[in-house]
């Protein structure tokens, strides 16, 4: 006997992601999902963005990691509310985990929540977590073939930040190729060449994010 089912497999995650979106809209909180490989510079970029955005906005951070509290300590040192979310082996963060963490923050007094996703170019791209924008970071030492190898990540992100751009002369990294491939996957992607270390390009990226935040919470 055949039974017709027609049920989305990620239905639970989508429902939960929509619930989070609704709550954050009511409380005028902007959420940024930061994704990229281990070592690409997710925490460093978040720190640099916090330094610039915290002049205007109240910020909180959710630090996702399989284990450990290394990154949460770095954020805590800035005096920013932070919750470490350990996934105990899971390769991505799901909306339900974010829903459980959000009550730890005073959302009435928060404007921007950064979520540092698990270091991985595959799974985080599959799961919406109620975010307003996604930033995918790709660093120069990782190589210019990553967009081709991990298309879903770059086709679902709003921003591509090419990090460690100050090291370009030491690596065989063709940033124009990366840009063209990313635009083929996702024509609306905004691409920034940055260095969290030298500060290059970070102001421009900050301004872009500020405009997005403004569109949501000031209107």
């Amino acid at each position, binding site marked *: 006997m055949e039974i017709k089912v027609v049920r989305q497999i990620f239905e639970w995650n989508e429902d939960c992601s929509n619930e989070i979106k609704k709550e954050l809209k009511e409380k005028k909180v902007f959420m940024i999902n930061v994704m990229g490989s281990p070592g690409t510079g997710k925490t460093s970029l978040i720190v640099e963005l916090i330094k610039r955005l915290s002049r205007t906005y109240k910020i909180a951070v959710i630090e996702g990691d399989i284990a450990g509290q290394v990154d949460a300590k770095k954020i805590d040192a800035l005096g920013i509310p932070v919750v470490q979310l350990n996934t105990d082996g899971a390769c991505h963060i799901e909306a339900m985990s974010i829903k459980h963490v959000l009550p730890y923050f005073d959302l009435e007094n928060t404007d921007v929540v950064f979520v540092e996703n698990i270091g991985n170019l595959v799974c985080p791209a599959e799961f919406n977590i109620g975010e307003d924008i996604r930033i995918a970071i790709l660093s120069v030492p990782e190589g210019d073939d990553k967009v081709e190898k991990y298309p879903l990540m770059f086709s679902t992100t709003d921003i591509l930040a090419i990090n460690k751009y100050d090291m370009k002369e030491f690596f065989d990294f063709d940033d124009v190729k990366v840009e063209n491939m990313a635009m*083929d996957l996702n024509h609306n992607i905004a691409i920034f060449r940055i260095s969290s270390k030298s500060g290059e390009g970070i102001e421009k990226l900050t301004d872009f994010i500020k405009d997005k935040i403004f569109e949501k919470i000031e209107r």
Partner: protein
Amino acid sequence: MHELSIIEEILKITQNEARKHNAKRILEIRLMVGEMSGVIPDIMQEYFNIASKGTLAEGALLKIKKVPIKIKCQNCCKESIIKRNKVKCPLCGSYDIKIISGREFYIDSLEVE
């Protein structure tokens, strides 16, 4: 590797449906997977065999139907099938497109006993 959490979800949904219809056994699970999703069908059956032991779905076959990426161009109004690495109208080159299919990831039907 989130295939395991996907399989747990498939098991949950299919067993609920099978029980609703008083089925004794699930023989086949038919999935629709869009080419834009990042799921790797090949390894799912192996995981499924392990995870489904002792359930109504033990021994069931996962039949995965891939759904190509279909777009409708907002410029020339024509529909086309495209590859995942070039998301634009192959006919007129416009990026102003609507994706009609290719993002699916759902359980379509079950064959039960």
